[in-house]
Structure formats: structure tokens, C-alpha cells
């Protein structure tokens, strides 16, 4: 199997690369006036990629490029999720970009490169391919954050993101090099068989390498104490970029954690489990408590993301199948919910004014009951109130954590979600109980409205019938491990 190149497995990635180049060229030749065409081309090529992804899977795990690239059930599910999230971001972002006169072709090209990076991360089967995908994603994101180059805050955020992100990548790479030095292999199977032969708790060098990998992962997830960049970048980046940043890359980060920790070092779980516990605890505590103090809604969402990633950590550190599938379910559903939340922020921003203060939500129910209702769904879902999907995500994680024997972690997690409920409630309070300051009618295109309604509907429908997606995640994890 090792000698087989198997190009066909990577058809979606190759197609996306070609399509991205084509969109880039199209934009250069067609210019300002036909930008909508580029937008449609970007959406179309993403959709085609989805079709290719679904078709490329033959029903069982397969490797390509001498075992560097892997295609399994989990990869398919995550790739489809990433592609749909990115497409939704494109649709949500359009009115904002046009309004700010930054409706540029580069937005789509960079986003598509980032998507390509995520897909490579998801399918990586060696440490170097993980790194390759990660860098493709990160470099595109740095540029995207700085997308409004004449805006001080945007540039500052990009700078911060770049410096911290580069350090994190360096850490990750250093950890990988230690693992390579120890095991003599860069593929996960080779690393895995080395780790299996060692007692991880007494092998100091292995623990040392593992620590660096965890640090790198922590940065990319944005979990405490490696979360410093998250609030600043969320706040500084243009809202559609924040939306992009806050949804799909979380799924890629989850995939990276699964490949590195579970695929490569499943037998070292005793080692990374104890490292992830403080990460999860700190994220839950810092994320939820710091979010209360925020008056900027993007910062608030940033801290809320940190706490949600703490939950994902909880799922992973359970180190059992239910835990992994719970973390996967959590990541995917959180990305869907966050997407909706950011869409409302985009909606509130109008004619050049950034609506990033929490006060901008004031009286939304009086002005636009439907939008307010959608936001209500997203917020209560994030707070984990049934029957919305966020509850089932938390339920699944808690179940796995209790099963793994960490009842105290589960208790801490629910306590912190009570704390978290407060700032979500405060936002609901502003929308429903307060009078609007000014009477501005917000109008959006059909595409935006339809998508937002679908998004809200998904949050309810997945809440009423979570079984299907849960089974999908459980199956993906079961088959892929």
C-alpha cells in the first residue's frame, strides 16, 4: 500500500486548488464590475468540492501519497462540514464587504486557500502534512485578519495573531521534531508504535515533546492559558473574518488534535490526558468569567469560544470513543451556532458603523422580531438550554467525562455553564426587555435572510432530532480509529 500514490483520493483538494487559482485569475481579468461573478464562482467551486469529497470516499479507510494522506469516514464528515461553513460565511459576508467597499477578490481566494489548508489538515497522516496544512491555513488567516489594511485595529490584530501564531507553530514543529527524533518516524503509525512500546509517564523526553505539541495545539484551539490572541483578533478583524475564524478552523483544529493525539499517541493518553485537564479547566473558568466583563460583543463571543473549546478539550481528554465523538459533535454544532451569532453582528452593522458593542442589540425585538428570535436561539443554544442543539453537545461531552471517571470535571463544567448563562441572558435581555435607542430598519438581501433562517432552524432541528448527527459522529469516530 505504501508505494501507491492514489491521486484520486485527493481529487477534491486538487480541484479546489485549481478552482482557487481560477477565481484569482478571474478576478484579475474581470475587475471591479464583475465581482459578483467571482463570488458565484467561489461558491460554485466550493459546492463542487463538496460533491467530489462525498464521491471520493470508497466506504473504507484509504491512504494516498505513500501513506501521507488519509481518507476515512471522519475526514469526509469534517470536510463537508468545513466546506458548508465556509460557503455560509461567503454568503453572510457579502453585504458587509460591499458596504465597507472591501468586496475584493482576495477575500475569496484567501478563504479558499485557508479551506484547502483545513482539508489537508483533516486528511493528514504524517506530522509534516499536518504542519503543511496548518501553515497554509494560518498564513491565509493572517492576511485575512489584516484585510482592512487602512484600519489600525485590523492591522494590530493581524500583527498579534501573526507573532503568536508563528510562535505556536514553532512550538508544534519543535514537539514534532522531538517525536521524530525519538521514534524515527513522521507518520502517525510509526510514532504510534513507538509510543505504544514506551511507558510514557517515565519517558521524560517523550513527555517533553508531547508538551510542546500540546502547547501548539492549545494555541490553535485558543484554549487558556494560550488564549491571549483570541479576544484581540476577534475584535480587531473585520466581522466576516471573525466569523470565518470562529467557525471552520475550530473543526480543523479538532481534526488536528484527533490525528496527533489519538491517531499518533493513543497509547500515550495517560500523558496528554493530564496535560489537557488544566487546559480545559482554565478555559472553562477564564472564558466564562471574563466574558461577563465584556461590553464588546465580539470580545464576548471570543471569551465564550474559549469556554466552548474547554468543553471540546473535556471531550478529547475523556480518551474514550464517546468522548471523541462528543467533541466532534460539539465542534460541529458550535461552529454552526457561532456562525449564526456572528451573522447577527454583521446584520447590525450598517452604513459603515461597526455594531460591535453589546448595546447595539438593544431593542432588537421591537425592530425586527424575527432576527431577534434567531439570535435568541443562538444564544440559548450556546448557553446549553434544551431543546436547542447546544444542550446535546454538552450532554454528550458530560456523559463521556463521567464515563471516564472525572465526575468533578463534569460538575465544574456545569457550574461554569451557569456562570456563562449570565452573559447570554444579558444579551437576550437587551434584545427583548429594553427599548431601542434609535429606530433603524435593517435590510438584508434574500440570500442572507434565507441562510440565517436556515441556520436558526438547524439549531432547533438538531435540538429536536440530534440523534442523526450524533450517530454520524459516533460512526465516524468508531470506523476511523
Amino acid at each position, binding site marked *: 500500500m505504501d508505494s501507491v500514490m492514489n491521486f484520486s483520493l485527493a481529487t477534491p483538494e486538487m480541484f479546489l486548488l485549481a478552482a482557487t487559482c481560477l477565481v484569482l485569475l478571474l478576478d484579475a481579468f474581470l475587475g471591479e464590475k464583475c465581482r459578483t461573478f467571482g463570488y458565484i464562482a467561489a461558491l460554485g467551486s466550493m459546492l463542487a468540492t463538496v460533491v467530489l469529497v462525498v464521491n471520493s470516499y470508497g466506504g473504507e479507510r484509504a491512504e494516498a501519497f505513500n501513506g501521507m494522506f488519509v481518507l476515512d469516514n471522519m475526514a469526509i464528515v469534517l470536510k463537508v462540514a468545513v466546506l458548508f461553513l465556509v460557503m455560509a460565511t461567503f454568503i453572510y459576508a457579502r453585504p458587509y464587504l460591499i458596504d465597507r467597499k472591501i468586496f475584493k477578490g482576495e477575500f475569496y481566494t484567501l478563504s479558499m486557500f485557508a479551506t484547502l489548508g483545513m482539508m489537508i489538515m483533516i486528511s493528514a497522516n504524517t506530522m509534516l502534512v499536518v504542519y503543511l496544512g496548518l501553515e497554509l491555513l494560518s498564513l491565509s488567516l493572517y492576511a485575512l485578519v489584516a484585510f482592512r489594511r487602512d484600519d489600525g485595529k485590523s492591522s494590530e490584530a493581524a500583527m498579534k495573531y501573526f507573532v503568536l501564531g508563528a510562535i505556536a507553530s514553532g512550538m508544534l514543529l519543535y514537539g514534532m521534531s522531538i517525536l521524530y527524533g525519538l521514534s524515527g518516524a513522521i507518520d502517525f503509525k510509526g510514532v504510534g508504535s513507538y509510543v505504544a512500546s514506551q511507558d510514557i509517564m517515565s519517558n521524560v523526553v517523550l513527555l517533553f515533546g508531547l508538551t510542546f505539541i500540546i502547547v501548539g495545539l492549545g494555541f490553535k484551539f485558543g484554549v487558556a492559558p494560550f488564549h491571549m490572541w483570541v479576544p484581540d483578533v476577534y475584535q480587531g478583524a473585520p466581522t466576516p473574518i471573525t466569523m470565518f475564524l470562529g467557525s471552520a478552523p475550530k473543526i480543523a483544529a479538532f481534526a488536528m488534535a484527533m490525528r496527533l493525539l489519538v491517531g499518533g499517541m493513543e497509547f500515550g493518553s495517560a500523558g496528554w490526558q493530564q496535560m489537557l485537564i488544566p487546559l480545559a479547566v482554565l478555559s472553562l473558568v477564564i472564558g466564562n468569567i471574563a466574558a461577563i466583563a465584556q461590553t464588546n460583543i465580539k470580545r464576548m463571543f471570543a471569551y465564550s469560544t474559549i469556554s466552548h473549546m474547554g468543553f471540546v478539550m473535556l471531550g478529547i481528554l475523556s480518551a474514550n470513543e464517546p468522548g471523541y465523538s462528543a467533541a466532534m459533535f460539539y465542534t460541529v454544532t458550535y461552529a454552526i451556532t457561532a456562525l449564526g451569532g456572528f451573522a447577527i453582528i454583521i446584520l447590525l452593522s450598517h452604513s459603515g458603523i461597526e455594531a460591535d458593542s453589546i448595546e447595539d442589540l438593544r431593542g432588537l*425585538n421591537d425592530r425586527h422580531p424575527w432576527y431577534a428570535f434567531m439570535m435568541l436561539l443562538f444564544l440559548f443554544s450556546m448557553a446549553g438550554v434544551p431543546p436547542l442543539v447546544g444542550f446535546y453537545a454538552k450532554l454528550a461531552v458530560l456523559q463521556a467525562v463521567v464515563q471516564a471517571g472525572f465526575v468533578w470535571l463534569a460538575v465544574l463544567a456545569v457550574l461554569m455553564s451557569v456562570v456563562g448563562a449570565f452573559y447570554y441572558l444579558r444579551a*437576550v435581555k437587551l434584545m*427583548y426587555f429594553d427599548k431601542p435607542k434609535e429606530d433603524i430598519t435593517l435590510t438584508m438581501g434574500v440570500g442572507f435572510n434565507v441562510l440565517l433562517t436556515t441556520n436558526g432552524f438547524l439549531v432547533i432541528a438538531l435540538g429536536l432530532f440530534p440523534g442523526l448527527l450524533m450517530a454520524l459522529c459516533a460512526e465516524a469516530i468508531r470506523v476511523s480509529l
Partner: protein
Amino acid sequence: MDGWSLLSLVIWLPIIGGLVVLVAGDKLSRPAALFFSVLTFIVSIPLWTGFDASSYLMQFEEKHVWIDTFKINYHLGVDGIAMPLILLNTFTTVLIVVAGWEVIKKKPAQYMAAFLIMEGIINGVFAAQDAMLFYIFFEAMLIPMFLVIGVWGGVNRVYATIKFFLYTFFGSVFMLISLIYMFNKGGSFAIADMYNLELGMSAQILIFLSFLIAFGVKVPMWPVHTWLPDAHVEAPTGGSVVLAAIMLKIGGYGFLRFSLPMVPDAARELTWLVIFMSLTAVVYIGFVALVQKDMKKLVAYSSIAHMGFVTLGFFLIYAIYNNTGSYEGSVLAIQGGMAQMISHGFISGAMFLCIGVLYDRMHTREIDAYGGVANTMPIFTGFFVLFAMANTGLPGTSGFVGEFMVILASFKANFWIAFLAATTLIVGAGYTLWLVKRVLFGGVANDQVAMLQDVNKREFGFLAVLAFAVLLVGLWPQPLLHVMEATVVHIVDLATQSKLPGVN
């Protein structure tokens, strides 16, 4: 048992009705809401008429696989304690729709929709036979109530509603962990399976405490009752009625459905704690009610005292069983608690509706602002006095039945418990009658009172229906007690059997 899926209908009909009302818009919302609430009430009546009172088994059962991964089933069913509460809920919702008919001017469609959706969710709480399904309904109920208090409430509504939400949310999350723990032990979320699950003592104690927090906040028991007066004072009349008449009962119901049968050994061990908390509620909160200046606050505190009776009755069973060695006294105590819950549903609902009638005219709930209302509103005064008497537990009214049974049962447990419980007859009469005296009787206090109009037909209607219900349960409680008897016997049976490993 029947192909009509009656319970699903009682849950989903009002929820769909609520959505229809929302779409129908403000103008059509009132008749639409009335239509759906009455229809739901009519649909729920066969639950009573078709109920087989001789069996403790779940009836009208429905079971479908829902979330396969966690073996969570959409499993519904009612027994003798759940069925009367569902009927109480469907009945009360009709009254709320009628009571809010002209009064609610701000976004009536959203108001009516919130109450209809809440009705469906609460029916789900009572009908759920799967612990996770129960929990989902239990939590989902917070969203409409949060909005009801926050949007249509009084001046300090934001504080009250966030306090309400956070208290109840805080209480219930621990229950979630307990349920997950039991699922991991027994591999099933079905309530009936949890009854059969063997649990060690320390696990039982922790689970019991988590249930106590969840249901104790809901009841609410002293010392976690402080959200209730705030929520009541700020809530619109309809919100207060649902809170007092239905939501508090969910706490009591939870003790019977979860705490006693699931962790009987811990319940036996910690029964002193609950009895202490209940007696504190009965005695101390009674005195607190005496000094209130706000009518709604007074009734809110009296609710806490009355619910103290309910929990007292439920947890006396171990002491009674130890003293007499028979089930009879224990059955009497739980039946008394249940009768008190149903009766309190009618009486507290009626009291809040009466206060609502006054508030709509005077826009104040301060007791000092009133005086001599009897002179201008004679018919209203008749109703108010009747409900006040029922609140004090006058024989012949529904309030008497439950209190009397609990006091009677508590004599079998301990004289001093009975003595302390019986003080409520004096204190309760004190604060209620003093309220009546200050508000209704005496000379006309001011010009506003002199201008008051007596109840109109709509108000007369719902007060008369409630008066009828209060008297019916008071004069002829037998059918109600009969319906729940087999179930209560079964619960006592479960609650007195040890579940420690190796005992059976």
C-alpha cells in the same frame, strides 16, 4: 392503550398552537389562543375519564426511540400523580388566556404564544418517563418564563427574571450530572430502570442532594426561596399564576418521581434535613408573610409556606413508617401533600388573579393604597374572601383537605412536628385575614377606591370557575384521592425498600 397518542397531543397541540398564534398576529391572537387552550383542555379530559385508578402502572404510554446513541426514548405515560397535574395545567392555561384578554396590550401575540408553548412543555415534564426527556422539558420551560417576566413584567423585571433563570438553571445542572451518572451505571435513561438500579450509600447521598437542589429551588424550599417573591412581584398576572399554580408543583412532583423512589436510602438518611427545611418554611416564612406590604409578595410567601407542607408530607413517610410499621400513615402523608399541591394550584392561581383584577384598576399592589374595596366591589369581595378562607385552610374548601391530612399524618411521626405544622393554621389565618381586612374592609380609603368598578363578566367568569373548583375539591375530595391512591401506595413501596447493593 389507545391509538390516539393522547399525551403527545396534549404536549404538541399547544406548542403548535403557540406558533400559529405567533403567526396570526396581534389582532387574531386572542381568539386563536383561546381556541387552542380550550381545545387542549378538552383533549386532556379523556386522560381523567379513561384513567384506570386501580393500577399504579403508567397509562396512555407512548414509546419511540429518539436519540439512539444515548438510548434516550421519547417515552410518555401518566400515573395517578402526573395525570391530575396535567389537567391542572391545561385548566389553568385557559384561565390565563381569558385573564390576559384585555389587559395585555403590549405584543399580545407573543404573550399568548409564550403561555401556550409553556403549557405544552410543562405537560411534557409531567408525562415524560425518560429521565433525559424530563430534564429537557424541565429546562426548556425556563425560556418562555424568562421572556414572560422580562417582557411583560414590572419595573424591576430584569433583575427578577435573571435571578429566576439563574437560580433554577443552577439547581438543575447538578441533577443532569446525577442522571448521567446513573445512565453510566445502569445503561438506561428510563425512569423505571433507574428505580431498579442498585446504588451505594455515598452515591445515593450525592444524587439525593443534587435532586434536592434541583427540586428544592423549584418548590421553592427555604433557604433557596428568595427568587420566588421577586419573580412573583415583577411577573405579569398570568406569569404569577403559572408560577404559583403549576411550576412550583414540578418541584414537588420531582421529589415523588425521582428522589424518593430512586435514592430511598439516602432519602431515609437525610429525611431530617428536608423536614427541618419544610418546617422552617411553614413557620418562619409564615411570619415573613405577615409583615409584607405588597399583596403579591404576601401571597408569594404564603405559597412558600404552603409548599413547605407538601415537602413535609412527602418526607414524613420514613418517620411514620418507623413509628407505626405500616404503610397507611405514609400513604396518607403523601396523598395529603398531593392534595395540597392541587388545591394550592387553584387557590394561589385565584389569589393572583384577584390581585391582578385590583392591579388592573389601581396599578398598585401596595396594601396601604387600598381599604374599603368591599364598598365598591361587592361581588369581587365575595370571591376574594372565599379564596382567602381557602388559603387559610377553612373546612369545606380545598385548602383544608391537604393541610388536615398532612397534620394528621405528622401526629403519627412526631408530636412536635405536628405542633409546629399546625401553627400555620394560626399564622396563615393571621396574614390572610389581616390582608382581607386591610384591603377589603373598613371605610373607603381614597378617591381611587371610590371610583372602582366591580368585576366585569369576563372576570366574573374565571373567578366563578375557580371558586367552583375550590369548593368541589374541598367538599368532595374523594375522586381526586382515589385517582392517586394506587400510585402513592406504589411510591411508598419503592421509597421504603432499600436499594443498597447486597440487601435484596
